[in-house]
């Protein structure tokens, strides 16, 4: 295809850089500087896709972020992207795009049958039908879903990367049009830190598409000079292709930068970058969006926004048609008419809803020989796949209908303008209000919670000269408020003031029949929402603008109603008989301003960096040993160490046997360790723990239980007295941070009078736990300054000395019920000691064991795990731990035991379970019932909290919480599983060495 619509010259495209691309398989050409949309128009493409609901043919209607129709599937395979606006895709060599939501193609689309049934499909039709028979919705839904959905999701992994950046600035300027550029210059000159972000590839905004002059020269000169001045200011950052997508509390903005116009083939650069900006002041110079006129069949390919048509001419050097009608209610569109005429487009005429337009621009148009048909409207459009003609009639006195004869104008382009809407989206995101300017029929930013201001066209300022003035003032002002007051003596640029007459606002233009009965008046082109739909919603009582939005889906498509919302709200106001659309209000503007990829939000937090992996000093040893990992919070802990060919059960059995019969080694470094010092340390522990601490001897350890104020078990661990005023507390791995936080909270907020300091030392120590009958022998080989005998070093005591010449603290504590030594050495020696122990331990049968074996071993002893035997509903009494509740003092949570529920007789209590079949290992989490049956509903009396095969006992064991469990010891209970019922006997929860002989040995 040749570029039949490309003008011979003009535009900002680079004609020396031709580019090849394909659309729906057809090879086409464009230039660097084109968007896909401008290139498609240049190549004479009219029909780009089909609409959502009726599958009507659709073309390009805009030139920027407001495009509602021209969505394409960009590329295929690994780099495919759905629903991309052709107007925002910068053309690159080799680009390939296809139409979406049509099959087999946009020219002949089988789904267009929908449009035959359009009358059955008014707004909300699905709420009224598809209900019979009840079960059939499933099938209806299947077809509805297939029909909906626009483009297709990528199905292969994303080859690209995304990243994020945090910045701070004094002034953030959103939008680099005339106003924004002026603001950035003014703020930048004061020395303030300024960020100027614009979503487009070039600065200039609306100016890029105009033939405007500044200081008597083409505006491009001022743009270029401004840009180069900004580049020279050290603390000004200009970000192009960067959309400020959201504005949040306390002047925080989210921006999305597209870093590679063409998708890179891998490499170091990220495709998109999400910026977090914390600004002292925000200047919103986001411009205005043109609104379409709403007339019958205004969706035909070739009906476009007048400003966009002008932009295609001036910026891209393409004409959007060869025979054009301009349809307007204001003066601005006359610029388009004149530009079209200048570009040699035929038959240009203007249809104006106003009576005798007389401003500067209409006069110019008339002088240029452009016909102006006033007080008229388009009543119909012919041509399905492209406009062929429009029918025009005169408006009646109150513009509620048309009169007189119909005239037909052949044309292939209708450039419409219904005026402009300030872009107040960002202002609204962060709680800003809007007011309706009745005279001009537009919403203007009002009160805001943030330190921000809307300026230029975003504030309803449509004269270029005013935008410039506004920009410089706002930039200076914002900088001054941020503390930068340096004055600049430069002369401000000026532009000619054009006298523009007011618009005549008629929200829905009449046709020869009542609206909805001749053609369709589209408000939301992407979702196929019409004026009749909004009127129906109003009629049916969906009176709130929010109801109408949801009932009709107006403004809920990917463009979020950038062109359709305001007319839609006004139409609703009319339908409700409300004079002022301001009383109906807008729907809520929400981020993002334009869609943002999930990948950009995720940034670098994906793949291996999704969340930190915390590693102990011995981590890589475990990895080389082939361990399987268990995730505990962010830690990786060795779960078990399978040898070649071993199953998990084999490995765990082997590890458990070694721990009770030889010696086994556990990496316990992840346990939380908190150093607690100060004269009130013991008193502090008295309040935090349920038991008493004042009497603990130095060098002795004690088990403690912590509760929340509701009496529920929160954490447990062993705490050791290192000195008169010095304790070392250990916590569970998962709760380490929470417990330190808990201690600090009480110390700082409730008991500041206590003289205590807490410091985390979790990471300072590597903890190697030797467990089993040979533990002492092995350890003895490594130390000559500690007496390891049971008398000299009794259970629940601590010694300091050296192990393998490394300074160490050794604790005789045990979570396995076996004689064991917890050796703590400075973390950086952990790996060395581990390796040495491992080598020397071979003769004693040393076996490394993981968390699974640890859990089995402790369950054999009936030791609880917080979070497994407890779940936030368990009090110590339930666990049979009354013994740890001091009666002599208060402690956190104690009062809650006096509540009726704590005294309930049927509370769930910790018990053991032995299955009838010793090889049957119950499922953890299985529910327990009293009756031998399996036909739900069955009342449950408890559940299995822990369950293992115990190699040491040669049978399965389990712990459970069972209602009145201690009274049921000896009873049989039942565990119904899908397809079977398992019986088990209730026992006490200690299976091995109830007297604790091994522990003390």
């Amino acid at each position, binding site marked *: 295809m040749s570029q039949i619509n490309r003008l011979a010259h003009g535009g900002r495209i680079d004609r020396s850089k031709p580019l090849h691309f394909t659309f729906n398989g057809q090879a086409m050409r464009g230039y660097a500087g084109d968007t896909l949309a401008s290139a498609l128009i240049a190549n004479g493409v009219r029909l780009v896709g089909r609409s959502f609901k009726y599958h009507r043919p659709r073309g390009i209607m805009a030139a920027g972020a407001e495009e509602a129709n021209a969505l394409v599937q960009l590329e295929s395979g690994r780099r495919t992207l759905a629903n991309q606006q052709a107007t925002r895709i910068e053309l690159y060599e080799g680009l390939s795009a296809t139409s979406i939501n049509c099959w087999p193609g946009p020219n002949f689309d089988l789904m267009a049958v929908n449009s035959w049934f359009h009358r059955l499909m008014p707004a909300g039709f699905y709420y009224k039908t598809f209900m019979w028979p009840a079960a059939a919705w499933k099938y209806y839904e299947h077809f509805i879903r297939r029909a909906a959905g626009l483009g297709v*999701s990528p199905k292969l992994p994303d080859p690209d990367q995304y990243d994020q950046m945090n910045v701070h600035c004094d002034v953030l300027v959103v939008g680099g049009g005339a106003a924004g550029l002026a603001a950035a210059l003014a703020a930048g000159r004061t020395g303030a830190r300024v960020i100027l972000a614009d979503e487009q590839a070039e600065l200039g905004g609306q100016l890029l598409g105009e033939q405007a002059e500044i200081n008597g020269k083409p505006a491009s000169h001022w743009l270029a000079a401004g840009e180069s001045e900004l580049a020279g200011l050290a603390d000004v950052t200009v970000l192009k292709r960067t959309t400020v997508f959201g504005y949040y509390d306390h002047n925080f903005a989210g921006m999305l930068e597209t870093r590679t116009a063409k998708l890179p083939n891998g490499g170091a650069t990220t495709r998109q970058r999400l910026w977090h900006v914390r600004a002292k002041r925000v200047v919103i110079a986001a411009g205005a969006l043109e609104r379409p006129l709403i007339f019958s069949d205004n969706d035909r390919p070739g009906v476009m926004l007048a400003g966009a048509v002008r932009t295609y001419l001036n910026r891209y050097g393409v004409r959007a048609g060869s025979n054009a009608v301009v349809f307007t209610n204001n003066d601005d569109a006359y610029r388009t008419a004149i530009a079209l005429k200048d570009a040699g487009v035929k038959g240009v005429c203007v249809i104006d809803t106003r009576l005798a337009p007389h401003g500067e621009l209409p006069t110019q148009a008339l002088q240029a020989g452009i016909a102006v048909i006033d007080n008229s409207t388009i009543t119909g459009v012919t041509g399905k796949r492209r406009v062929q003609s429009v029918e025009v009639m005169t408006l009646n006195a109150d513009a509620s209908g048309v009169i007189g004869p119909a005239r037909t104008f052949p044309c292939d382009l209708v450039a419409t303008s219904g005026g402009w809407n300030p872009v107040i989206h960002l202002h609204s995101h962060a709680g800003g209000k809007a007011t309706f300017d009745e005279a001009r029929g537009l919403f203007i930013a009002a009160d805001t919670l943030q330190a921000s201001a809307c300026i230029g066209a975003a504030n309803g300022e449509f004269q270029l000269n005013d935008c410039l003035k506004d920009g410089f003032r706002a930039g200076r002002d914002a900088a001054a408020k941020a503390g930068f007051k340096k004055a600049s003596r430069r002369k401000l640029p000026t532009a000619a003031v054009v006298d523009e007459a007011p618009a005549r606002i008629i929200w829905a233009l009449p046709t020869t029949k009542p609206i909805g009965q001749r053609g369709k008046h589209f408000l939301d082109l992407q979702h196929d929402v019409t004026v009749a739909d909004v009127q129906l919603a109003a009629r*049916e009582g969906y009176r709130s603008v*929010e109801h109408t939005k*949801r009932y009709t889906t107006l403004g809920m498509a990917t463009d979020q109603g950038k062109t359709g919302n305001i007319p839609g709200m006004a139409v609703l106001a009319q339908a409700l008989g409300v004079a002022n659309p301001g009383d109906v209000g807008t729907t809520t503007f929400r981020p993002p301003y334009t869609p943002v990829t*999930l990948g950009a939000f*995720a940034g670098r937090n994906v793949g291996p960096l999704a*969340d930190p992996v915390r590693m102990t000093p011995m981590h890589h040893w475990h990895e080389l040993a082939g361990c399987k990992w268990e995730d505990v919070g962010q830690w990786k802990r060795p779960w078990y160490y399978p040898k070649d060919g071993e199953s998990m059960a084999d490995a765990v059995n082997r590890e458990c046997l070694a721990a009770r019969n030889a010696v086994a080694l556990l990496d316990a470094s992840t346990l939380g360790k908190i150093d607690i010092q100060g004269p009130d340390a013991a008193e502090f522990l008295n309040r935090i723990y349920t038991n008493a601490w004042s009497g603990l001897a130095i060098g002795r350890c004690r088990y403690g239980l912590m509760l929340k104020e509701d009496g529920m078990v929160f954490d447990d661990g062993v705490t050791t007295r290192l000195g008169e005023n010095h304790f070392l507390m250990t916590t569970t791995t998962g709760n380490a941070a929470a417990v330190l936080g808990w201690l600090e909270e009480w110390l700082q907020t409730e008991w500041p009078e206590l003289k205590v300091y807490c410091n985390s030392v979790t990471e300072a120590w590597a903890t190697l736990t030797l467990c089993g009958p040979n533990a002492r022998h092995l350890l003895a080989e490594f130390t000559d300054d500690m007496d390891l005998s049971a008398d000299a070093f009794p259970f629940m005591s601590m010694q300091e000395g050296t192990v393998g010449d490394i300074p160490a603290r050794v604790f005789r504590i045990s979570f396995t019920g076996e004689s064991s030594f917890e050796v703590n050495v400075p973390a950086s020696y952990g790996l060395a000691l581990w390796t040495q122990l491992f080598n020397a331990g071979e003769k004693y049968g040393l076996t490394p064991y993981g968390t699974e074996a640890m859990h089995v071993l402790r369950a054999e002893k009936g030791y609880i795990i917080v979070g497994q035997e407890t779940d936030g509903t368990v009090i110590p009494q339930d666990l049979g731990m009354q013994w740890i509740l001091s009666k002599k003092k208060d402690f956190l949570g104690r009062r809650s035991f006096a509540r009726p529920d704590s005294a309930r007789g049927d509370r769930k209590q910790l018990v053991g379970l032995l299955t009838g079949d010793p090889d049957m290992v119950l499922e953890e989490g299985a529910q327990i019932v009293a009756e031998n049956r399996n036909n739900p509903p069955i009342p449950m009396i408890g559940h299995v909290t822990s369950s293992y095969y115990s190699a040491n006992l040669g049978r399965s064991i389990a712990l459970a919480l069972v209602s009145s469990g201690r009274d049921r010891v000896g009873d049989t209970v039942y565990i119904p599983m899908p397809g079977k019922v398992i019986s088990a006997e209730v026992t006490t929860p200690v299976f091995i060495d109830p007297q604790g002989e091994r522990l003390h040995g």
Partner: protein
Amino acid sequence: MAEVEKPVKKYSLFSLARNALSFHQNWEKAWRSPEPKKHYNAIIIGGGGHGLATAYYLAKEHGLTNIAVIEKGWLGGGNTGRNTTIIRSNYLWDESAAIYDKALQLYEGLSQDLNYNIMLSQRGVLNLAHNLHDVRELKRRVHAIRLNGIDSEYLSPAQIKEMIPIIDISPSIRYPVMGASLQRRGGVARHDAVAWGFARAADARGVDIIQQCEVTGILREGGRVTGVETTRGTIHAPKVGIVTAGHTSVLAAMAGIRLPITSYPLQAMVTEPVKPILNSVVMSNAVHCYVSQSDKGELVLGAGIDGYNSYTQRGSLHIVEEQLAAVCMLFPIFSRLRIMRKWGGIVDTCPDASPIISKTPVEGLYINGGWGTGGFKATPGSGWAFAHTMARDEPHALNAPYALDRFTSGALIAEHGAAAVAH
């Protein structure tokens, strides 16, 4: 029970076709917009799903028709209009299973009962496990639910993959998928339709739904409620129900009642619409994400709650970022889909993650709130039980455990496992 049937213009394919011929000019209003009367037999404060359902069941089951629902904004505009619409009854404790499954059962016939298609889509809800603790807790729930007579299954990673081919179950991801619970009867429903369907059906039974009317005070005399002060004048009633979700504490404070409730922002978002790609609802508490695809084609995604009290109906960006990173971990192909809109709601959470459906110390004043991040699924059941409570001045067995005094006695219904994150 004497029911006064008002003529309803029934919705059906037939009525749709007939109306099409007259360009849809003749549909009746879905509900009226009446002026408030001076006096009602009962007032429901809050026109969300729960309030409207309460009114509907008061009229339908208890014959109380001189009642008003008073809504400060537009009906359904609270959390009912901004939730991720996940419906399920896979809760751990018996008390929860009972009320949530009652709700699910009502949902299963709701389109027909209300003559309004609420588009209940029972496409199955999966809750993923990512570590051994999750696995244990999920299995505990699966078994409990099954023994309560409610459908529930446990899936292995391979079975998950079979159901959802696009999910990444490889063991090399940061938090691998280790299993999932599945409730096949779970799914989603069209949230707006639930509010609108109840409103229309309640209106048809004579209930006045008064929108744009904010309750500013609760009138009491001698320990009894006598009515409410509103922005549209005083309205009297011997019974008043507070059903205001995010604003439960604010309304209760008007009657001098302090509640164990904190209101947090909770955010949700939708992507651009794409052709069907995800057929079930996937939730993961451990990595904070839940996602389903709507009939229109968008992915509907929910985030975790923001960590601080707020009534702003918007939340912080980092919460959304964390959640979307989790989505990218489980569904790497979604990284290039784009968020089209995100928003916030205000959720009223109780310490035990269970609601309050209760009488109060003020006679004639009732509270239904504290549903936190998960009350949409309960809407019909909650309204049904609350209507009973208001009509009889005593709780139904279904909601008796949800009385306020459980915070005094300690008999909490800890559903953190089922509800730790939003859904």
